[in-house]
């Protein structure tokens, strides 16, 4: 017996409300898109840029470690000579080391801020968020210790400030800081220890990134080539024009009046001297705890996880391959059908994006059943509701254009109306390509699929899979008979409703040319 007809009137969900800060950030991203293009927009690849900066810092640091004299007497001279005697070699590497570290802090801060503004820290994303918190401390530790190793007046300031800060801690703080308070206490062994902490903390950041990205399939850890080249050239130019140099060697009997501090790492110490070491500890610990518990403070409604229907699953692995959050694992078959594996959804990791639904070979709208049942589906937004809405729309408006949009991108409902049947899914990649073919065969004049593109997808890979499937590069592919000018893919982010209208009004191209499919 067929299950009851879904009660959803349309496969269009209520769009999530946007906060003013989120709208402001998205508006900023859109402006940057106009300048850089979506693929090279640094605001969309902040995490990847931070990783790139880390790699540059590690590579340049490796060279500096080779020439660095790890003795108290030789540390300052080894780096100072490097910068002054070899401005185009070692000096450049040193400058790159400093500026990449500073840029790492800036990109990381922006990355954290962006994810927070876009609400990407709660629900299934909690692990990625929380695992990033300790990395902030490790990066701060590595940076502060790194400046200490230079053994100039700036190092004296940071050593003194760290001593003042840790000296407040009951128990070991005062004892610890005695190692740094007088010149006689500064030993070669201390410098060896500093080198170890500096490098080890940086490597721990790298190792921590592996954990940070553990629940993300195909993480983007490299910016696009165009952006990477742009940022690398920027750092290089900065290093040439504004080389990083040491100040005078540290004099432990005198405190520099005006220490040239690196505000990306030292910001906490002026705060401490304006208040107290205890106040700074309170701010840092409270800030860390606040960040760590943030995922549980959001009252985000969580969509139901995808559900597997083994009767319609042949264990093809496509949902496993396409899931952007590694929420699907393959386990041995349990229903005695002649397939080796079956998918199993981890509800805690599932974003409810429906990308798996779009990948399933059973998601064929041509199937004759009244209710379209597929191998994996969203209980709240079943695929059959999408097909029903399409059928109803085409029955009411024969020959209309069909717009398939996504809840996170341009608002498809705002564009629908006379001559346009607008449908929306959680992600454009929930749409099986066969739906475009089906819509044309059912009488649609043309089909426009609006996705957030390769670099703007809220579910990370939806835009990429949509483009690849429609272009015939990734299963399930759009059948060749449907490829052509009647099926178009548009990159339309939130706020791009005008471009969607224009593209629908002008099939051959609107005011601004739509992003075409690569092979269509």
């Amino acid at each position, binding site marked *: 017996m067929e299950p009851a007809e879904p009660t959803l009137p349309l496969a269009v969900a209520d769009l999530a409300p946007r906060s003013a800060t989120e709208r402001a950030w998205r508006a900023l991203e859109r402006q940057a898109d*106009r*300048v*850089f*293009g979506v693929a090279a927009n640094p605001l969309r690849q902040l995490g990847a840029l931070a990783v790139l900066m880390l790699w540059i810092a590690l590579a340049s640091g490796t060279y500096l470690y080779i020439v660095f004299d790890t003795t108290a007497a030789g540390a300052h001279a080894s780096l100072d000579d490097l910068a002054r005697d070899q401005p185009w070699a070692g000096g450049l590497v040193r400058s790159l080391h*400093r*500026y990449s570290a*500073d*840029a790492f802090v*800036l990109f990381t801060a922006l990355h954290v801020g962006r994810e927070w503004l876009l609400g990407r820290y709660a629900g299934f994303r909690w692990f990625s968020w929380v695992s990033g918190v300790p990395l902030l401390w490790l990066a701060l530790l590595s940076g502060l210790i790194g400046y200490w190793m230079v053994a100039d007046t700036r190092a004296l*300031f940071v050593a003194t400030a760290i*001593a*003042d800060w840790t*000296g407040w801690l009951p*128990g*070991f*703080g*005062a*004892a610890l*800081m*005695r190692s740094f*308070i*007088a010149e006689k206490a500064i030993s070669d062994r201390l410098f060896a220890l500093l080198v170890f902490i500096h490098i080890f903390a940086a490597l721990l950041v790298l190792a921590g990134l592996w954990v940070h990205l553990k629940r993300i399939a195909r993480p983007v850890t490299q910016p696009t080539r165009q952006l990477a080249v*742009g*940022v690398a*050239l*920027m*750092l290089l*130019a*900065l290093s040439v*024009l*504004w080389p*990083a140099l040491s100040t005078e060697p540290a004099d*432990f*009997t*005198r*405190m*520099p*009046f*005006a*220490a*040239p*501090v*690196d*505000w*990306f790492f*030292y910001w906490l*110490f*002026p705060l401490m*001297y304006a208040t107290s070491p205890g106040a700074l500890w309170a701010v840092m610990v409270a800030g860390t705890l606040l960040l760590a518990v943030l995922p549980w403070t959001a009252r985000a409604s969580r969509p139901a996880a995808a559900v597997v229907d083994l009767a319609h699953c042949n264990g093809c692995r496509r949902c496993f391959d396409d899931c952007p959050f590694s929420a699907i694992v393959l386990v041995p078959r349990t229903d005695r059908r002649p397939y080796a594996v079956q998918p199993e959804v981890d509800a805690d990791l599932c974003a409810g994006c429906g990308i798996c639904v779009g990948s399933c070979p059973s998601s064929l709208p041509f199937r004759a059943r009244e209710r379209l049942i597929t191998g994996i589906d969203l209980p709240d937004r079943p695929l059959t509701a999408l097909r029903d809405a399409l059928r109803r729309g085409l029955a009411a408006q024969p020959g209309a254009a069909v717009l398939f949009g996504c809840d996170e991108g341009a608002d498809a409902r705002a564009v629908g109306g006379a001559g346009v049947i607008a449908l929306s899914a959680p992600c454009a990649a929930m749409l099986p390509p066969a739906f475009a073919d089906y819509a044309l065969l059912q009488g649609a004049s043309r089909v426009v699929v609006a996705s957030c593109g390769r670099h703007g997808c809220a579910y990370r890979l939806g835009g990429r899979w949509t483009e690849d499937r429609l272009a015939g590069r990734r299963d399930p592919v759009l059948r060749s008979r449907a490829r052509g000018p009647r099926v178009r893919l548009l990159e339309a982010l939130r706020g791009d409703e005008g471009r969607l209208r224009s593209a629908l009004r002008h099939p051959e191209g609107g005011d601004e040319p739509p992003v075409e499919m690569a092979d269509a």
Partner: protein
Amino acid sequence: MPKPLRYLVQALLYAAFAAVVGYFSTSPPYRQLGDDQALLRLSLLHPGKPKGDCRQRTPEELAKMSPQMRTPLDCPRERSPVVVRVELDGKAVIDESFAPAGLNRDGASAGYRRLPIPAGRHTVRARLSDDTRSAEFPYERTAELDVKPGQIVLIDFNPAQGGLLIR
């Protein structure tokens, strides 16, 4: 947006980002002390004397103990806190008691304090007591200093070098 204009704006934005990175990596300089200020620092790491006197165990007490535990003296484990008083030109600026470390209060006392002071001629008098059984301060040092702006005056304690040091 026309391509040449896009590239121009891109270059300007990259330059602006580089300027932010370059400027804030060294500037603005942070002034920790005023032009006419110096810094007085106190740092010590010293175990105080035991808090109480040792007591001779009676033969009866020793007999009740395991053979390997029969030490004739019963000494308290807890140490005295280290009390430090520092006067600058006759005025007390530091008067603190630093507790011994450890769960049983049997470790060394560690202390650190920093105090910006005006530059100029000063009389610094430091006293230290490490025994609660005595009201006296067995260690004392007084120094006449001409402190220059930015100078760090360190009060340290090292019994091997004569106790309190002011340098």
